[in-house]
């Protein structure tokens, strides 16, 4: 089990979902995530599970809603335009407090955009693309190993908090092949007394978000959700600080762009320049406190994204002296370049 194997990011994610006990997958084809449904269509029947290709993204997320309401561990995956279509369902899932895992292998936008990797859906993921006052947990893997590890974590977090957990990858991560050690099941068991399993020996269960009359106040639900979101914010922030303790220059990134930043940090260090990297592992909750600590001594903070600047808003909200924060991004499926990052850091001078 500790043996290293070579897998594509999308397929490692699929296998990890099965390891985590996911036996239901509903999805719709869209590039660059097609390996996920293809993998699940092959593997789930072998495990006694159900793969169903839905007639639309809307149908897929609502099948997820139904399967989750029935008490199952369930997953769907898509890419940016498809995730836009799922927003209605995600809002209902938030309102009904249903656990599920949703994978977004981001591609360039807006609109049909292109099929190359991108990080243009940060706002949609962290601000909530659907209607109403809600949040969803957002995990941001940077390697194929993390695609697998964070998927296993995602199912536990979803069940623990009765929330949708979004795995925010990108087309490069989905398509790349890397060595990984498959994760082990965590063995955590979550009781689901709220699930729709038939009112035998108990009162009927209702899975719903509608609160029309004062006796079932919607604000009451909103406040319950808010308490949950506060608890998640306090307990579930995840990040990695790489060579940040003495860093004069701090790079902030996540996913594929963080790998490019890591390379830049290594090369700058070889030249005697004290650079460091702060990498998000959760985009919501945003690891603000860890970033405040990591950025304490930095003269400049360079936010690097595969977009024209989205995460930078959270970076500015989190650090002391936000005028230190600068930005470098590429969009439309293009990648930031190591040399350009180095050039910018050097240009800051002393």
């Amino acid at each position, binding site marked *: 089990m500790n043996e290293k194997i070579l897998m594509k990011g999308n397929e490692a994610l699929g296998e990890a979902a099965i390891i985590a006990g996911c036996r239901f997958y509903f999805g719709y084809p869209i590039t660059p995530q097609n390996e996920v449904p293809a993998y699940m269509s092959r593997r789930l029947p072998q495990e006694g599970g159900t793969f169903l290709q839905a007639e639309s993204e809307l149908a897929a997320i609502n099948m997820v809603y*139904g399967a989750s309401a029935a008490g199952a561990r369930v997953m769907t995956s898509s890419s940016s335009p498809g995730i836009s279509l799922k927003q209605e369902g995600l809002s209902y899932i938030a309102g009904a407090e249903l656990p599920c895992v949703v994978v977004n292998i981001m591609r360039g936008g807006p609109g049909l955009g292109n099929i190359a990797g991108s990080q243009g859906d940060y706002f949609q993921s962290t601000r909530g693309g659907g209607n109403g006052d809600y949040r969803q947990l957002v995990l941001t893997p940077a390697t194929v190993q993390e695609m697998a590890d964070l998927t296993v974590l995602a199912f536990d977090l979803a069940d623990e908090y009765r929330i949708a957990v979004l795995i925010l990858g990108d087309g490069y991560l989905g398509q790349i092949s890397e060595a990984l050690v498959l994760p082990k099941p965590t063995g955590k068991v979550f009781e689901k007394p709220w699930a729709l399993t038939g009112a035998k020996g108990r009162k009927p269960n209702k899975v719903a978000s509608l609160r029309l009359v004062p006796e079932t106040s919607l604000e009451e639900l909103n406040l319950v959700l808010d308490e949950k979101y506060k608890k998640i914010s306090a307990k579930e922030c995840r990040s990695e600080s790489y060579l940040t303790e003495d860093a004069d220059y701090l790079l902030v990134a996540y996913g594929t762009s963080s790998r490019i930043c890591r390379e830049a940090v290594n090369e700058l260090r070889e030249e005697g320049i004290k650079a460091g990297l702060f990498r998000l592992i959760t985009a919501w909750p945003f690891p603000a406190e860890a970033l405040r600590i990591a950025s304490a001594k930095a003269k400049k903070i360079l936010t690097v994204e595969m977009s024209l600047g989205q995460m930078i808003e959270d970076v500015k909200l989190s650090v002391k002296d936000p005028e230190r924060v600068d930005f470098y991004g590429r969009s439309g499926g293009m990648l930031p370049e190591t040399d350009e990052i180095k050039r910018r850091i050097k240009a800051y001078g002393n």
Partner: protein
Amino acid sequence: METKTKDFKYVYDKPEALVDKVTHYCPGCGHGIVHKLLAEVIDELGVREKAIIVAPVGCSVLIYDYMNFDGCEASHGRAPAVATGLKRVNPDSIVVAYQGDGDLLAIGTGEAIHAANRGENITTIFINNAIYGMTGGQMAPTTMEKQITATTPYGRDPMDVGFPIRGCELLNTLERPVFIERCSIYDFKNTLKTKKAIKKGIKNQIEGRGYSFIEVLSTCPTNWGMKPQEAANWVKDTMVPYYPLGNFRDN
């Protein structure tokens, strides 16, 4: 029941599957009747403890508050997809998707057709009252030609917005559904036929036979601007000629 005495023969009670409360439906609305028929069928077939009602968006959005078994909300038009998820996880559940005309034939046409085409082992009850009730009487996909609604103030013009869509006939082009029937609740005789059709639909599900579709021509006196009896007559005289009653398939 406390009212029972040895001097009286006990002949009728509210179904156990129905919650004993006053509904929010208008006088003469067909929803209450169909709710009760469904509850009676659930009791008679002994499946209350396995049943799940999937509610639509529309006037019957709160149906789960009236049914004394598990219930699930669905977003507008997505009941067949939600029902698919519920049923695939627990195949022993008895899953009923209850949908209105806007839900099933406008915003959720895709979900309705594909759940039927897959032959999902669920029962769909489709309430066709030719109008959007909850939002205040707008044109539905099933609104009759020349019918006045909040959004067809000059009457529905088929040359502009198309003819009313016939749900049973549409689904009858598919291979997998096992039962398709159109009924009505405009009088007692037809109400009994409606109950029989719902019972067949649930029985099919219990036996694992597949997808059953029961369309019920129903009333909306408030938004039609009619008294309850006028509304019942309007179903018979105006809707039935366009939406013929009867069984389309019973495999």
